[in-house]
């Protein structure tokens, strides 16, 4: 004990050890805090399927326009009426969308409710003006239902 007391060398080393440990404590606190920071808010943004639902909605809208002009085109070469053709194409579309969404573990349902003509006939492109579609989306924690989604097809 006496020899240890007399030996005054190494004081700085001991002090550096202390400082070092304090720095480590500080760093650990910082790192910890960075881990806590914003976990739930980030997670909510990542998990909430905003873009998936919006895509379902907006792509169905875009698609209705495409299908409308396509069904008038097909109408020229077949005996089927425009609404019948449109319905077939729409069924085809919704099956494809359902398969594509199912690959991500999401259940969607897109079904055509009605095609509306402003004057009751389906002779040319401007006759169809509004289409009603039911949309549902479910990924286990978020459920979205739009019954009906009113799509104006005016292009």
């Amino acid at each position, binding site marked *: 004990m006496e020899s240890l007391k007399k030996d*005054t*060398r*190494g*004081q*700085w*080393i001991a*002090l*550096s050890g202390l*400082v*070092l440990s304090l*720095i480590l404590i*500080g*760093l650990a606190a*910082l790192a910890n*805090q*960075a*881990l806590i*920071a*914003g*976990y739930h808010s*980030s*997670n909510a*943004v*990542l998990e909430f399927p905003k*873009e*998936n639902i919006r*895509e379902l909605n907006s*792509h169905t809208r*875009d*698609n209705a326009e*495409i*299908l409308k002009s*396509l069904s008038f*085109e*097909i109408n020229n*070469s*077949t005996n089927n009426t425009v609404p019948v*053709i449109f319905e077939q*194409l729409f069924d*085809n*579309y919704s*099956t*494809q*969308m359902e*398969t*594509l969404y199912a*690959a*991500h573990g999401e259940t969607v349902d897109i079904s055509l409710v009605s095609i509306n003509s402003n004057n009751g006939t389906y002779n040319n492109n401007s006759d169809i003006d509004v289409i009603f579609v039911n949309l549902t989306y479910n990924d286990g924690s978020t459920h979205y239902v739009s019954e009906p989604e009113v799509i104006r097809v005016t292009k």
Partner: protein
Amino acid sequence: MNDKAQLHTMEGLLAAILMTMTVLMITQSTAIVTPQNELAIDVQLEQIGSDTLKVIDIAPQTSIIRNNLTECVASWDTTTEASYPTNNLEILDNSISNLMPEILYNVNFAYTRNGNLTVKKVIIHGQPADNAVVVRHYVTLTNETVKTMGGGWNLADDEIKVVEVRMTTWKV
């Protein structure tokens, strides 16, 4: 006065200064760069990725983005898959990298064929990092768009094909 071990004192002093500087530097740098956890980076990646696809999708003819997403997808020849480093959809690749520089991405197309899901690689920029985020966008192809863009989708006149553009984005 004991004047031995002066050098040790200097050494200690130096060490103390060094450590203080380190601590200062670390606290300073975290104050400037917002301490972001990995999830926050993922949020930004997802945002930028989905914005990019959306902007390309809605881009009108009269903008710098000459072909919108549907046209880009329609022009794909369907037979050759991309294998690093060759990509076979130049136009889409250029449009994406113009909009989000400094971010790497891979693009796949997913679509149904005879009721089964098919996924094809289209643009490859490397192996995605651990924090990669996937964004997706949908387009509908008809034979008309495919013909005008000269793609190889081989659709019948009364056929439509919904294609999922799946983009994996990550930061290096």
